[in-house]
């Protein structure tokens, strides 16, 4: 699926084509004292690129690790992780034995970590990493290496040179691309990338993003792209999921999020992000800072920083409400947010409208507890037009 296809947001709604499914996933540390992932549910569709955005420490990496059941010790993962192979039966990832888990990882779902430099064994040449991965999965070495070469070329690298280098002999951008090639060498279906470009400069980030998009197209990949840089991923992702304080606060197609962000946090984030288009005067920082895992506020975790918050936010943790199809948000006052927090740029080149059509979907449709304050969505979201 390419970026151009992504506009058909409806395709993602087709639940049958879910490839990875996370249900009520929580990760705790310190014997349950601190939640670093708090009851997160999300579906990842086949062949989509989903971007997960959130500030540092919000639990993005935990979410990524949870998808592979690879939470670093001594964290505890609870909930449900399901994988639906192409044409196969559901696989309960958390139930797998060691051998099947080993097969799942890297052969079905593979991962690229934050910081390529530290993902390579510094005392081994890049080639060794490829070969041992192939060996570990009993793959044919020759074919595998040929594929590796092709992948590296796809990533604008000179395979011979890169393979025969030690990691430290490559620049950061080259390492990161080599790492991406390494993650794809076993032809996985899903590629989870945890801030794969954070350490690079913008030019390289953008270049890699372009390459990733090409790869996705060429190899029919599903990609989970994690970043704290919303504008960056916006150009790549079909859907965006916004994390705040270990929870997903808003999920939806990219243009929905950009155009009709409904969570106050998302809106504030958009306003705080410098970009070339935003008029300078209206750029605004978000006051305060995000909570630490041990003292997440009761109720809505964004409450202390939220201009819309009131008493009910203190008491009730908001459930996800559906804004439009496939666009959900966890806020009691999502309908008011657009009005209260105007966006300071024109996401759509000045024609933000399409939202209105399906903006009327009642909130709380799939929020089991039902939002008590679920009000009519009519006419609530026009405020973002400028």
């Amino acid at each position: 699926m390419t970026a151009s296809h992504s506009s058909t947001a409806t395709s993602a709604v087709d639940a049958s084509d879910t490839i990875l499914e996370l249900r009520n996933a929580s990760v705790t540390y310190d014997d349950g004292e601190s939640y670093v992932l708090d009851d997160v549910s999300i579906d990842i569709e086949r062949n989509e690129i989903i971007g997960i955005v959130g500030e540092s420490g919000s639990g993005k990496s935990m979410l990524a690790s949870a998808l592979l059941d690879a939470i670093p010790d001594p964290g505890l993962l609870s909930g449900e992780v399901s994988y639906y192979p192409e044409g196969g039966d559901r696989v309960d990832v958390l139930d797998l034995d060691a051998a099947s888990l080993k097969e799942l990882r890297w052969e079905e779902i593979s991962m690229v970590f934050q910081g390529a430099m530290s993902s390579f064994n510094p005392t081994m040449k890049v080639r060794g990493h490829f070969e041992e991965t192939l060996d570990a999965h009993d793959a044919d070495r020759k074919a595998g290496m040929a594929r590796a070469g092709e992948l590296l070329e796809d990533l604008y690298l000179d395979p011979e040179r890169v393979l025969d280098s030690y990691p430290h002999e490559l620049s950061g951008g080259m390492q990161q691309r080599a790492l991406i090639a390494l993650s794809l060498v076993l032809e996985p279906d899903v590629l989870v990338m945890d801030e794969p470009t954070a350490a690079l400069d913008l030019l390289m980030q953008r270049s890699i993003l372009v390459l990733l998009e090409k790869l996705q197209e060429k190899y029919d990949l599903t990609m989970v792209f994690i970043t704290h840089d919303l504008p960056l991923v916006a150009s790549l992702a079909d859907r965006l999921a916004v994390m705040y304080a270990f929870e997903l606060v808003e999920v939806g197609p990219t243009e929905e999020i950009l155009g009709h962000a409904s969570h106050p946090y998302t809106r504030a984030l958009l306003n705080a992000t410098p970009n070339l288009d935003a008029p300078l005067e209206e750029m605004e920082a978000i006051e305060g800072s995000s909570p630490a895992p041990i003292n997440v506020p009761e109720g809505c975790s964004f409450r202390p920083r939220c201009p819309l918050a009131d008493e009910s936010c203190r008491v009730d943790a908001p459930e996800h409400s559906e804004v439009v199809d496939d666009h959900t948000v966890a806020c009691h006052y999502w309908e008011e947010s657009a009005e209260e927090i105007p966006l300071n740029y024109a996401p759509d080149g000045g024609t933000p409208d399409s939202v209105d059509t399906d903006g009327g979907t009642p909130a709380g449709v799939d929020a089991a507890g039902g939002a008590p304050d679920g009000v009519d969505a009519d006419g609530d979201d026009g405020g973002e037009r400028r």
Partner: protein
Amino acid sequence: MKPTEADSQVGGVDWSSSNAAATDLSRMDRYRDLYQERVYKPALVAWSDWRTRFGLLIVGFYVVIALIAALGLYPSPETNQAPRYLLPLENMNYVLGTTATGTDLLALLVHATPEMMLMITSGAIWATGVAVVLGTVAGFKGGTTDRVLMAIADFVMAIPGLPLIMILAIAFTPENPLVLGVLITLNYWAGLGRSIRSQVLTIREQNYVEASRTMGTPTHRIIRKDIIPNLMPYVTVNFVTAARYVIFASVGLYFLGVLPIGAENWGITMYLAYSTAGALYTIEAAHWLIAPMLAILFLSLGLILLGQGMDRVFNPRVRTRLAGESESTAGSEEEDSNASTEIL
């Protein structure tokens, strides 16, 4: 640069803090601060770790013993002060028993302690002191100074330690424990100096050092404020290691009969037990050999434990955490990895 009076033109900033009370520090407060910083918190940190705690207890015990000996609170060892070859616990006046000359073994051990502690301290101070000074200067100055100092260190390092000490001991027959300590660690500093230099090279590249330089802070102050405090964990660990080396080497050399027999020393006691009483093969004399051995073992055990835990004392993270101060969310990285700095 602008004249300093420009401060007054700086309109936007009200130089008098709204929190005026906080800026007024009485002398008392400062002393209290100093006490908090230099005594209370380090002690708290040290005590929080069982290794340091035991290490402190053991080393403290030896210090107390040394004081007891130095103040003459325990009778000094004399020949024929008791029956010969008493076994431990046989006569409660001589708990550890006596030697072939009727000398109280406990008195021998007790009165050997002050010199041993002096020797250890002087040796360790010498080794780490020279290493810190030369390593820091070399690392910070760089260039010719660095090359010359490191060439010297290389040369000194190439000389095997124990043989060198033996030759020097015979040449100079040092009796003063302070001199002996220095002698034993005469070339110990070289290896340490080298590694301190490379640490300094790393620290020197830290941005805060560059910031200090940008402010025009003089080099000696940078070294004192920015470099040395950050070397401290490493230095303490090595201080303790050097101390242990002094014990091992000095006792070994006394045991070989290479060092002059001046005052009491555990090594001499061992040597006499071994060579004049065949204590290794006779159960009746075994305590004479074993007691000083245990004295050495416990002291070095204490030092090792101390070394294992000591570097935490200099780690501000551990310090603030234990002192119950808040830590911001952003800074809550896991405990510094250098807490596991290991002894060589």
